[in-house]
């Protein structure tokens, strides 16, 4: 019972972290129609910048400065890269972001090398907040939860309650009309791209000390972010949140409990074959949930695409 509570908290942390990444990606996609393959690379840059800044100025300055630097870089990429490629259509844009992802990974390896960086939780947050039945919940995780929830509330407020948000939402659906009304749509695009990448950078800053800061960190997270926004519905902030939490809890619970396929199959009426060694389906029978935990989100994505192609909260109107 206590373990369920612990897993709920762990899943929440994983989910919220995923949300910070997917929120920016989904906004960028709905606005420009570009799937930004380099998104997770900005997450990695966030972690590395924060590590570098934290050596000189401490963790908190890293938390403040690194996302800003990443955001400015992102805006620059949009202004001087994507905008030029845009006129040639979506495929060159995709290829551009893909190349950018490779370039950033190589650059990171070039500057910082291939080793793990000793980017650690700051002293002040390096204690156990509370423990449940021997399982300690580090204070840093609570801090992560607060930061991500704060970001979500802030984004929601800006998008729905402010004038800037209104214009962004209008530009999402009717860019030409908004332009005709005298708003600078390219500037809005650049802004959204900048903020989106800054969010990814922030995710990197707070995830780096926990998940490790190394050149492969973008790679391990890259594909799952796309899965998240497809499940949530492209362009929907709520969708991104719900899908992120869903994936966070799904994978956490699947890893924490050894549910065996045998039990499930027995439960729905199949009996275990007598001589397992020769059964053609041996691999299926011996699967346990931790083994397949990481592909569960992909299975979920396939199901969503079959039964609800627009995603959980998506509105497809093209």
């Amino acid at each position, binding site marked *: 019972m206590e373990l369920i509570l612990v897993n709920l908290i*762990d899943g929440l942390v994983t989910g919220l972290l995923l949300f910070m990444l997917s929120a920016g990606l989904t906004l960028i996609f709905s606005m420009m129609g570009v799937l930004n393959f380099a998104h997770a690379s900005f997450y990695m840059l966030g972690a590395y910048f924060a590590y570098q800044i934290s050596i000189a100025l401490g963790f908190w300055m890293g938390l403040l400065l690194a996302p800003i630097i990443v955001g400015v870089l992102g805006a620059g990429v949009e202004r001087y890269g994507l905008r030029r490629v845009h006129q040639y259509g979506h495929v060159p844009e995709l290829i551009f972001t893909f190349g950018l992802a490779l370039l950033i990974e190589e650059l990171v*390896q070039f500057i910082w090398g291939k080793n*793990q960086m000793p980017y650690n939780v700051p002293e002040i947050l390096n204690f156990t907040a509370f423990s449940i039945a021997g399982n300690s919940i580090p204070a840093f995780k609570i801090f992560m939860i607060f930061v991500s929830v704060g970001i979500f509330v802030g984004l929601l407020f800006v998008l729905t309650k402010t004038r800037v948000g209104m214009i962004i939402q209008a530009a999402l659906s009717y860019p030409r009309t908004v332009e005709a009304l005298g708003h600078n749509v390219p500037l809005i695009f650049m802004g959204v791209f900048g903020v989106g990448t800054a969010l990814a950078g922030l995710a990197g800053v707070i995830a780096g000390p926990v*998940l*490790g800061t190394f050149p492969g960190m973008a790679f391990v*997270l890259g594909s799952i972010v796309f899965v998240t926004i497809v499940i949530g519905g492209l362009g929907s902030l709520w969708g991104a949140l719900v899908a992120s939490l869903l994936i966070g809890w799904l994978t956490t*619970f699947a890893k924490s409990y050894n549910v065996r396929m045998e039990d499930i199959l027995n439960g729905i009426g199949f009996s275990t074959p007598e001589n397992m060694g020769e059964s053609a389906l041996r691999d299926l029978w011996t699967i346990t949930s931790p083994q397949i935990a990481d592909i569960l989100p992909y299975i979920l994505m396939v199901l969503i695409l079959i039964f609800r192609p627009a995603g959980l909260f998506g509105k497809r109107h093209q």
Partner: protein
Amino acid sequence: MKKFTKLGAVSALSLIVGASAAFAENIKIGFIDPLSGPFASTGTNGLHQYEFAVDYMVNDKGGVLDGKNFEVIGFDNKTSPKESLIQLQVAIDQGVRYIVQGNSSGVAAAITEAIDKHNRRNPDSRVLFLNYAAVDPSLTNEKCNFWHFRFDANADIKMDALTDVIARDEGIKKVYIIGQDYSFGKSVAEAAVEMLGEKRPDIEVVGNELHPIGKVKDFTPYSRKVISSGADAVITGNWGADMLGIGKSVIENGFEGPIYTYYAAGSGMTAAFGESGKGRIRLIAQGSINPIASEEARDLYNAFLEKYPEGNIDQSRIFNSIGMLARAIEEAGTADDVVAVASKLEGMEYETMWGGTMYMRPQDHQVIQDMYVGVHTDEDVEFDFDSSGFGIVTESVVEMASKDIATTCEMKRP
């Protein structure tokens, strides 16, 4: 200006010609391991140690066979068996006759099989496989062949030594075994269960599980299970980012006991564990770094630090493999006839600067050597890892570990 350009071009050209003339005599060693992707750091550090080893131990001392130099060429296999076979072919086409590889036994199995086939079909361009770190026991048992030599202790030998140490600790009543889901991870788990059962039947294995290799983002759910199982000690064969991930995660989430590992040092890991792993992380390795085993090793380590100030010698077996290869080539009097070289490697006894004697068993090409169990700490550390102040200090030695370990290898000699 024009003249200058011309001069530059000519000198560059002559350099190239000169260089290729010099390289023509080189004995090429193909290093096939991950140089990109999640395990890039492990591979790159291995390559640096190889490059340094051939320069320091062979080339700077006049080479072998009256002046032939060793040359290490890196090939990136992205930890994929398929990619490795492509790179193996590229290497052979470039005239490489000695392949070194170590990261992932899955890759090693693919390479050893491919080399066996290649050598049967192409007697003129046979190659040897010097395995410096892939420790799946099957490579020197059912999958053994004449071309494969292992310079690292295999997983069973390491587990034998590790469980000796665990068995001495009366406080350990429950252990949790966790590893990467592939051949090596499975053999670590099997060996641990079997050997603990023999040495300390009272120890209960409260968890035995595998996780996907190189794909886990967050180890928290796994560490929750470790802690709720009430384990006193954790055993893992993890390496690279997976080792740091599981180690950091169990410590952060409240695990109090020791973690017995194979590979929890160097490649940024020692620095990243830092204070949190002090006195907790133990690992089994060949060769003693702290205290350093010999003056020769001390000089070598200092020279290495001069070249790579941030570097670590965390795989001293790399130096042993180069030392033994150089000696075998000298004794065989040729580097081109790999059968002759392999015959000299078989049964070789080699005094290593890292402590003790290495013996290459002829029946399965498994090296037998002293094994050391060390602890991650910052006390009495002469050579730290990752410039972190932390390093591995030897706690116990098992001499000529498992020298009579059984093998099912039926070696077919050419």
